[in-house]
């Protein structure tokens, strides 16, 4: 089997083998194969979203029918939805909900994940298992006693019942961050502590910068989950239209016996737009990897 080192003098790093036609042919094939696959995947993933966009500009008579390409283009649907529902207000509510929830999740989960992954203490495994278990109980049952609680406190009709839990305990974030923190070698933190840092300082000054991709990913998922959350806001803010987030608005373009699919899809597209922008902007920061040289392996 040909390896790169065959062509180079011993000890030196082998140069890119432009000279060898067979190798460049192999590499080109590889390039074509991976990129064709990537393209195919991209198209497949895109199709349903394309359907959403196309439906959004159709006349409602054509929506959800056999003709898939818009016969008429009603771009004004995107504006019509603003007339029908105060989308900007809902957008603000969504922003408040998702923004605060994400901030809360990070604030509470980072220390907890740090404690679960970087420190050794009795009962640690039990706590980790309990965190996992918290994700096992279906939300449909937890809402019954929790709704009671919030009515007693008197905060239904607001976003507080939705946001508050994130400032304490978000099992998903803790779990994900713990796994990310585990991939960061302990040695860096040990070094910082030998230098005289407390755990807290080690966490903030050493771990956080290195775990940026993981933290960004966790933040992204928390934001996204709360952005598209429907049943939570329906239960806790349903009776107060001033506090509706966008996800409730999407469900409001319907009558008793029919649905205005074109407007629903237009509202859906508008709901997706901000998070798409957020993702495009943020993706570099959590997908770019960090390389650890000289420590592992």
């Amino acid at each position, binding site marked *: 089997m040909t390896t790169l080192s065959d062509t180079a003098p011993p000890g030196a790093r082998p140069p890119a083998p432009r000279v060898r036609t067979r190798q460049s042919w192999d590499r080109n094939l590889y390039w074509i194969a991976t990129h064709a*696959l990537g393209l195919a*995947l991209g198209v497949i*993933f895109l199709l349903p979203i394309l359907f959403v966009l196309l439906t959004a500009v159709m006349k409602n008579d054509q929506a959800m029918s056999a003709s898939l390409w818009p016969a008429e283009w009603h771009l004004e649907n995107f504006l019509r939805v603003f007339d029908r529902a105060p989308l900007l207000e809902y957008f603000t509510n969504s922003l408040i909900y998702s923004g605060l929830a994400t901030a809360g999740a990070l604030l509470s989960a980072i220390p907890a994940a740090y404690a679960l992954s970087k420190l050794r203490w009795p009962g640690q495994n039990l706590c980790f*298992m309990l965190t*996992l278990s918290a994700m096992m109980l279906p939300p449909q049952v937890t809402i019954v006693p929790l709704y009671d609680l919030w009515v007693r406190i008197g905060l239904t009709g607001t976003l507080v019942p939705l946001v508050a839990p994130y400032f304490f305990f978000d099992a998903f974030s803790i779990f994900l961050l713990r796994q990310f923190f585990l991939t960061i070698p302990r040695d860096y933190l040990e070094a910082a502590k030998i230098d005289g840092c407390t755990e807290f300082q080690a966490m903030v000054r050493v771990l956080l910068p290195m775990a940026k*991709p993981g933290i960004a*990913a966790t933040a992204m998922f928390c934001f996204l989950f709360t952005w598209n959350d429907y049943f939570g806001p329906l239960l806790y803010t349903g009776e107060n239209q001033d506090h509706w987030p966008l996800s409730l608005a999407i469900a409001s373009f319907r009558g008793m016996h029919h649905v205005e699919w074109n407007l629903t899809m237009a509202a859906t597209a508008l709901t997706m737009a901000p998070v798409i922008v957020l993702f495009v902007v943020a993706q570099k920061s959590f997908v770019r990897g960090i*390389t650890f040289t000289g420590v592992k392996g």
Partner: protein
Amino acid sequence: MTTTLPARADSAPAPGRLRAGAGRARRHRTVAFFMAPAALGFLIFFGYPLVATVVYSFTKYDLINPPTFVGFDNYARMFSTEPLVRTAAYNTLWLVVVLTVCRVVFALGVASVISRLRSGVGLVRTLCYLPSLAPPAAATLAFVFLFNSEFGPVNRILKLVGIDGGLWFNSPAMSKPSLTLLALWGSGELMIIILAALLDVPPEQYEAAQLDGAGPIRRFWHVTLPSISPVLLFGVINSIIYALQFFTQAIVAGSAAAGSADVAGNSKYIGAPQNSTLTYPVWLYVQGFRYFNMGYAAAMAVLLFVVSAGFTWLLVRQLRKSQHQEEAA
């Protein structure tokens, strides 16, 4: 961006055992401080509902009047007279097994492809993640619509190639595989996480393996997988939980198959066709909130919790054992 270990010439030696004891106390204080919000939140937002659910499961509770104690009646009913809970459990179990495997493998595969791309990486990455960004009900409807057996593009394209696509979501036999495809389409989250982990693998390890003569498959098996194993564990557990709580998509897909798609899944038509999309959480919700048998729904929840928590604990313990073995080696 690389960081190297700071050179330590000499450090002040730690003064004796006295300091060690105080150090442990300080460490425990730190842990308590770090875990305090989580512990409190766990108690209030999980511990309390869990205990309440267990208590409800031994009662008849119609959500309005105070619960009345009935002992193990709900559990007895679950295992004897109520026919649909079995179907629901089977459907969810099917999803747990099939969907978990497919989701992790698919996410790993797609992430691997993306990690090898040189141009258009950002675009493909965004496109693969796009479905997860969509509100679940609308995304499900769009997906189901594309698979419509008569005029959906999927079947139309398959017909061009001469394959009869079948009824997809309208067929009791194919509805769950179709739901799996839907879940795969929406697995962008996991893809991104695995991608991040893949990019974290030190390239020197690949080069070392290559020098040792390892081909791409062995490199994958011996270098990539161990490196990303914590994230893969996350993927497996996350997928299991996702399958266990498969709710909105099941309802929306079922109502679309019944010909009455509704915007948010608050449909009267559940489980179509022939209860093949009736998942355990859906049936639990219907029992509790449509039929007002909250005690029975709580019993279902307790069963679900016990089975899934037990299974996950075993899994995690098994994996940690193998992880320790590898670290020791």
